[in-house]
């Protein structure tokens, strides 16, 4: 098991370095960093001096090394758009994105999994068919359209919920949270539903097909023959065995949630890192783009690693095999 974890760690570091290389090439070769920093009337000598001072004349591998070392300390230089340090810009906005993604994930899990269990247990019931049809529509509707429709109904027509921003936030250290105020919580509802909808349908369909498969297995028949209650069979035996794929998908989708927050944040004018990224794409603000790329890369790698480790906790069969089966199946 230790060898497996070590190998996964090495792979993660390799992926991160590659992402770092892409971010570095962006930073260094797309547009001239010097042009972005100095005025029009700076002389060639001054530019050359600045170039030397910033280390832009060093060989590329050495520059890359410096870039990685700085990135690890959260130093990404100044934003071309606002001239603020990129690290601070991102740190200010990351709590908003993480809180939104967290709520969306909770929504998707706590609604999607029970719906999947229900439709898996009673596939022929009319309400299951209804859920299925709705989920097909949910997969075909783009995220931003769901958001717009929710705004139209709940904010414009019914005037129940706010359509933009985070409401009032409370600072805990450097972390600004919307969980502690009434308006902050209300502001979270629509964006979380929008962001979680796709994951909800995905989870529902996954749990449903897994349940259908598991319910046909022999051990379910035997559990029934032993006279266990339906409840014990459905949740203790059946649902437990559908958990491994559910964990994989939830984990991978957690990363997708943070990435797709870009769209939801734009619809709801949510002040998170996704909105920052869109602005940086529109203004070709390369340092912010590079930093965001690295941040997302880091998050994805960490999530994948955590998912891999979770398998060992959930599935005892893997522990005895040392995880080789899982690696082959990846």
């Amino acid at each position, binding site marked *: 098991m230790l060898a497996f974890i070590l190998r996964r760690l090495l792979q993660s570091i390799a992926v991160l370095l590659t992402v770092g290389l892409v971010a570095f090439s962006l930073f260094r070769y*797309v547009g001239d960093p010097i042009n972005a920093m100095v005025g029009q009337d700076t002389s060639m000598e001054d530019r050359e001096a600045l170039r030397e001072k910033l280390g832009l004349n060093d060989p590329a591998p050495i520059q890359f090394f410096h870039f990685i070392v700085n990135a690890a300390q959260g130093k990404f230089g100044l934003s071309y758009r606002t001239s603020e340090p990129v690290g601070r810009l991102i740190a200010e906005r990351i709590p908003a994105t993480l809180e939104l993604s967290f709520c969306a994930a909770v929504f998707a899990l706590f609604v999607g999994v029970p719906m999947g269990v229900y439709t898996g247990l009673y596939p022929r019931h009319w309400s299951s068919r209804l859920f299925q049809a709705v989920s097909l*529509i949910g997969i075909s509707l783009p995220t931003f*359209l769901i958001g*717009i429709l929710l705004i139209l109904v709940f904010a*414009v027509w019914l005037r129940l919920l706010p359509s933009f921003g985070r409401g009032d936030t409370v600072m805990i250290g450097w972390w600004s949270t919307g969980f502690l105020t009434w308006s902050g919580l209300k502001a979270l509802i629509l964006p979380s539903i929008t962001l979680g909808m796709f994951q909800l349908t995905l989870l529902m369909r996954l749990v449903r097909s897994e349940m259908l498969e598991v319910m046909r297995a022999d051990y379910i028949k035997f559990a029934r023959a032993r006279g266990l209650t339906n409840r014990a069979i459905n949740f203790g035996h059946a649902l437990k065995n559908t958990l491994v794929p559910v964990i994989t998908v939830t984990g991978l989708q957690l990363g997708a949630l943070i*990435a797709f927050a870009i769209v939801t944040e734009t619809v709801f004018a949510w002040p998170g890192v996704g909105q920052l990224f869109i602005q940086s794409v529109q203004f070709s603000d390369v340092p912010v783009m590079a930093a965001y790329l690295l941040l997302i890369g880091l998050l994805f790698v960490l999530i994948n690693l955590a998912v891999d480790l979770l398998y060992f906790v959930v599935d005892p069969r893997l522990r005895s095999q040392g995880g080789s089966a899982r690696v082959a199946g990846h």
Partner: protein
Amino acid sequence: MTVTAAVATVLIVAIAFLSPVLAPHTPFDPATLNLIDGLKPPAMLSSDGDWTFPLGTDDQGRDVLSSIMYGTRLSLAVGFASVVVAMVLGIGLGLVSGYFGGTIDAVIMRIADVQLTFPAILVALLIDGIVRSTISVQRHDEIALFVIVGAIGLSFWVQYARTVRGSVMVEKNKEYVQAARVIGLSPLLIMVRHVLPNVTGPVLVIATINLGLAIITEATLSFLGVGLPPTEPSLGTLIRLGNEVLQSGDWWITVFPGATLAALVLAVNLLGDWLRDALNPKLR
């Protein structure tokens, strides 16, 4: 269900491509617009409406129905084109990777792994951002169509490459490939003429499923304001423009293009599902 989807798809495609003939107005010719016609509600739902604008008009006085018809045409064209780009790129790299193996294979597949770490929309956004920072804004608007096709194409190639590579690795050890090699055909000829026809089945299935995804990605990019410019609006751009006036209650400018987009993607997805089942020998 499938028949309905097929009919709906054919209908939408036909209407979209005949839009210059069928559309009641030419919405993006400024000479035909009249601001007095602005923000008219849909004629079929409101007595304030004007039957020359069945689905109402936007704030510039453009007919929503005609905009939707032209927009659908663009969305479909971008969707198809980017699937083709992704397919050609993916098949090419997959063939090379599977046929030659070794270092080339390792390099291509590691790139694929890293790219797969990120959702396609993020890759497309990034490519668009890179192009934006290398050329001027005006120039970008002119070539926006190609940029977006390229960006979506580049973000979807991995699936094709992996599938083709897998099939090629099976096929290349079969006798007909060895025979072709023995009679001295060049690797390029063997790959294109002999191996490729035997690996296209699964690729076509992925392509149909990806078409819906490509249309959604284009709409999302346009909605985010980094896709097609307002002078050449796709469905996503129309939804974005409508979203800007949504707060004042003029819902029809957003809802009708949105409903069209949803119907289009749903129909394409249903067709894709059907094609997957039809082409999958295990289910036959």
